[in-house]
């Protein structure tokens, strides 16, 4: 296992040298890829020295000097946090997010803050105020979003691990497009304290890595109850053990469903590759059956109606007085309106306005309330499946990465690319994406879903797929 071997290497060789290799890579290629908004090289060097001392004494934490990057909507103390927006161009975080704190405690080295779609409003990583992130596999193509820099930094070897956030695919989509592992935990498993979220009922932080081992390791570190986020639940914190103890024969006990709705409108090459992997799992003894998820075709409108509403409400705090960009004006109302006009990007404005519209008294019942009622239907669909199956398998994205600039002007085309990922967030369940091959030189991601708080099942499934694809 790649990440396990890397840790063994770090324990016998030098953490500082390992960090310097990362910094060298960043200096060589980040200008082109634009994975970072803010780099924390100095601070990283300081902590690498401290961690090296701990390793020499045998007192190091679980991450043992692995280099971690963090999406720029998650707070790192005394470090700029922009959310990819001009709105927060100069905002300095006054505290550590819970996930940041936990990573520091377990001796991860934080190398920098990752580029992202502005306030996570985007599916391809091109809407950041700080310029688009480019796909390290081929810089003419988008890296996927909104956690674009997180996926790109792992794919480009700028970091060993990364933390992103997933509202409707924002971890899984870039993981798929950049050819790395991405994991969206069940709602409530990972604390959102210190996360500036796009939609509070859908979003949570989650890990990126180069293999299942890395995902499980980071999940052990960041999951669990946090008094500062009341929706959090206890974690068993033994995900790594689950992955380490997995044996080839364990696949025989797995009941895996696939739904035809998850293959409709999917690129033929992607479809065939995923079906091929499903066939491999079946030949190794997994029980595979076809099921139906009739409401998935409604998931895009339900999801976006909820996002618009929650996002426009969350954005109302950005008035320019307490922090962030400020434009000024004759009176309070004008000052706020000017500030927001001159600092928000097009997609952010679109969502703020639509969210305001669909929650106005006279339109609320027609749109927002109806979406909330329909959300129950999606949750019920999954509940039915997971009563009989351990996992649901399919592709992560309906298409290959597209060329930079191709979809930016058509919001509906951009929204439609989320069709296979948003329903996991609507239902609050866990889901993953992992690379299983390439089409035309671009990576293809396989998506697994498991029931809420069934992370162990999901990780076992990921490991089975990893082994089936020839991973060590």
């Amino acid at each position, binding site marked *: 296992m790649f990440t396990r071997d890397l840790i063994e290497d770090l324990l016998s060789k030098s953490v500082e040298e390992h960090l310097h290799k990362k910094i060298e890579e960043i200096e060589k290629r980040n200008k082109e890829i634009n994975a970072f908004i803010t780099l924390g090289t100095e601070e990283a060097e300081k902590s690498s020295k401290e961690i090296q001392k701990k390793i020499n004494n045998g007192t190091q934490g679980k991450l043992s000097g692995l280099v971690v990057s963090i999406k720029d909507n998650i707070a790192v103390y005394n470090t700029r946090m922009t959310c990819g927006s001009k709105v927060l161009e100069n905002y300095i975080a006054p505290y550590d997010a819970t996930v940041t704190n936990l990573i520091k405690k377990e001796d991860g080295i934080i190398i920098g803050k990752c580029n992202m779609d502005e306030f996570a409003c985007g599916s391809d990583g091109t809407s950041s105020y700080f310029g688009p992130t480019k796909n390290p596999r081929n810089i003419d193509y988008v890296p996927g979003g909104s956690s674009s820099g997180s996926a790109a930094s792992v794919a480009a070897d700028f970091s060993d691990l990364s933390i992103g956030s997933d509202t409707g695919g924002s971890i899984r989509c870039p993981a798929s497009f950049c050819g790395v592992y991405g994991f969206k935990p069940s709602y409530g498993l990972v604390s959102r304290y210190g996360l500036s979220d796009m939609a509070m009922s859908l979003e949570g932080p989650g890990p990126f890595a180069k293999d299942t081992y890395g995902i499980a390791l980071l999940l052990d570190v960041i999951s669990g109850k946090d008094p500062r986020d009341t929706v959090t639940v206890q974690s068993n914190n033994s995900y790594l053990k689950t992955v380490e103890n997995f044996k080839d024969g364990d696949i025989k006990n797995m009941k895996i469903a696939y739904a035809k709705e998850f293959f409709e409108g999917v690129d033929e090459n992607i479809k065939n590759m995923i079906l091929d992997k499903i066939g491999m799992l079946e030949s190794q003894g997994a029980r595979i059956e076809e099921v139906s998820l009739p409401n998935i075709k409604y998931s895009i409108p339900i999801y976006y109606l909820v996002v618009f509403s929650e996002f426009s409400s969350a954005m109302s705090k950005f*008035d320019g007085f307490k922090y962030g960009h400020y434009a000024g004006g004759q*009176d309070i109302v004008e000052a*706020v309106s000017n500030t927001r006009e001159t600092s928000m990007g097009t997609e952010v*404005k*679109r969502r703020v*306005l639509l969210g305001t519209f669909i929650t106005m008294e006279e339109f609320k019942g027609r*749109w927002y309330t109806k*979406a909330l009622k329909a959300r129950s239907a999606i949750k019920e669909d999954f509940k039915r499946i997971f009563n009989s199956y351990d996992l649901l398998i399919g592709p992560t994205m309906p298409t290959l990465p597209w060329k930079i600039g191709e979809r930016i002007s058509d919001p509906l085309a951009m929204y439609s690319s989320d069709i296979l990922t948003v329903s996991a967030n609507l239902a609050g369940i866990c889901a993953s994406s992992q690379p299983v091959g390439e089409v035309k030189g671009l990576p293809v991601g396989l998506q697994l879903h498991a029931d809420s708080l069934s992370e162990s099942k999901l990780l076992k499934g990921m490991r089975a797929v990893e082994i089936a694809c020839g991973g060590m």
Partner: protein
Amino acid sequence: MVETIINDSVIERVSEIARLKLSDKEKEKFREEFERILEEFSIIDEIKVGEKELYYVVENVNVLRKDSEPKPFNNINRIRSNFNKIEDDFIVVPRNL
């Protein structure tokens, strides 16, 4: 069908409530887009929905803390240093008529 026709005065009101100034060009662009988006989204009418509105997927949403005096944040100066304009302990804002 979208029975909600989004006319200029609706866009005007939305822009006001959202505290987001829009140019005439933006108003027209968004008005046209919103009609197209909501037209497509109106397929949710096909779903048979119950009465339950699902705001949260978890049960433990409104957890109350003990009613004791909360500890103040330990680094108030770091918060304050993000303020754009302060006088003594107050944030300076324009006149509110």
